[in-house]
């Protein structure tokens, strides 16, 4: 079953913060986050592993609630370059197969 992301789309002014949520119906081993710009391939941002380990970038962070089977991506002081569609990718079994979420389109305006 495909993870559900919310919101579906959001428009922010440069400098504002954003939160994108990913909810799964299955228990998760790991959650990945990717950003895809129009006409380009997805680019890896962050991974969260069962047990709380987190890896990623400075102004982009994430949380992983294993009990609720949810993850949230936090974008701080958004920049124009943050625009794109964000996808979570979930791996329930640790077998490296990702199921991608429904996607969230983020638009940053000056």
């Amino acid at each position, binding site marked *: 079953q495909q993870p559900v992301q919310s919101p579906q789309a959001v428009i922010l002014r440069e400098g504002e913060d954003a939160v994108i949520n990913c909810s799964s119906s299955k228990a998760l081993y790991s959650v990945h986050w990717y950003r895809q710009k129009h006409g380009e391939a997805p680019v*890896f941002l962050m991974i969260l592993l069962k047990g709380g380990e987190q890896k990623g970038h400075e102004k982009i962070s994430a949380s992983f609630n294993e009990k609720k089977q949810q993850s949230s991506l936090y974008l701080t002081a958004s920049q124009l370059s943050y625009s794109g569609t964000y*996808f979570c*990718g979930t791996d329930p079994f640790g077998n490296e197969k990702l*199921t*991608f979420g429904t996607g969230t389109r983020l638009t940053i305006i000056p």
Partner: protein
Amino acid sequence: SAVISQKPSRDICQRGTSLTIQCQVDSQVTMMFWYRQQPGQSLTLIATANQGSEATYESGFVIDKFPISRPNLTFSTLTVSNLSPEDSSIYLCSARDRGRVGYTFGSGTRLTVV
């Protein structure tokens, strides 16, 4: 991170024909993945390709329609067979470096079936 070269970048094909998409990775990787993405939609996993064994297909995808080759640890091909307009989509390959945490994607192949 790994660099994946995917080709062709786009093609227009006639109904009933086939298209083979190639992905070359600049390092050895254990598993490669093939996805389909309709414009404006999410990515759907087609199959997982391991070197030296048959590919593993996801529900709704079959080997006769999407045969996959994985002759070595740096290369894979996906063929989309007996094309119909419903096959028009973007196809992407993906892999993960040993020791890396995230996946790298090829640049994608935009297929249009007429």
